[in-house]
């Protein structure tokens, strides 16, 4: 019988490999369809990380909304827009030195972390467990969303309405 911490670590590294490998292949593949499929692998890894951290509602939202919604939208647009011409051309522009400058700052920190090991860092003190822990993740999330965050929730719904109207206006040939 494996101990729980080791099991959690094994699953963390599997999901992290999915996330990072999928992301690297997403930004390096030439074909947009291949990029979209590897992005799905990466998003599924992120969903697994949510499940590992007991965020079950976000896990479901990630699967349904990202993989089922956004990625289908991406694949539809790839079908609609003729990408054959673009796939034959140069895939990278000449901005690699700007990317290098932007990345090196955080990249040095990541390498420092990896070389020192996680035991050397104390991020924050863990919080105290809340009283209503008998409720599940989804119930507690709904409590927070419909009481403390009611106004941002309604504003988000208006944002989605604006996005729907905006995308229809953009994509339609003549209004």
């Amino acid at each position, binding site marked *: 019988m494996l101990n729980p911490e080791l099991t959690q670590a094994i699953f963390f590294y599997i999901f992290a490999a999915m996330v990072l490998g999928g992301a690297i292949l997403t930004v390096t593949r030439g074909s*947009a369809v291949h990029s979209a499929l590897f992005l799905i692998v990466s998003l599924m890894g992120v969903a697994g990380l949510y499940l590992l951290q*007991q965020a079950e509602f976000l896990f479901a939202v990630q699967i349904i909304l990202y993989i089922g919604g956004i990625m289908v939208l991406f694949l539809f647009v790839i079908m609609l827009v003729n990408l054959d011409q673009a796939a034959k051309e140069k895939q990278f522009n000449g901005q690699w030195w700007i990317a290098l400058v932007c990345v090196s700052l955080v990249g040095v920190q*990541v390498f420092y972390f990896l070389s020192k090991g996680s035991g050397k860092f104390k991020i924050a003190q863990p919080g105290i467990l809340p009283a209503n822990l008998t409720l599940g993740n989804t119930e507690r999330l709904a409590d927070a969303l419909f009481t403390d965050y009611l106004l941002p929730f309604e504003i988000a719904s208006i944002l989605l309405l604006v996005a729907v109207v905006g995308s229809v206006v953009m994509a339609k040939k003549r209004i």
Partner: protein
Amino acid sequence: MYPITTAHYIALSAALLLIGTVGVLTRRNIVIILMSIELILNAVNINLVAFSQAFHNLNGQVFAIFVITDAVAEAAVGLGILIALFRNKETVLADEVDLLKW
């Protein structure tokens, strides 16, 4: 290498953010640039959920829901703009759209 702490999640999220940034800055295809933006938003979400779990506080997960909402709105409008652009200019390469450049 174990137990897995919040620091592991932060390092993973930083690496994902870097990969997404490289994608946004170096790719020419607008579809793949939009996908890299999705990677960056996912890196933010990993961070939010990790701290939410560390503090036993659900506010981080509520913010992750709002980030996902923004990602959906951004993808919908961005792909609408892409279709309009392809109809007018017959290109999906970002550096061929240079009317405002001097």
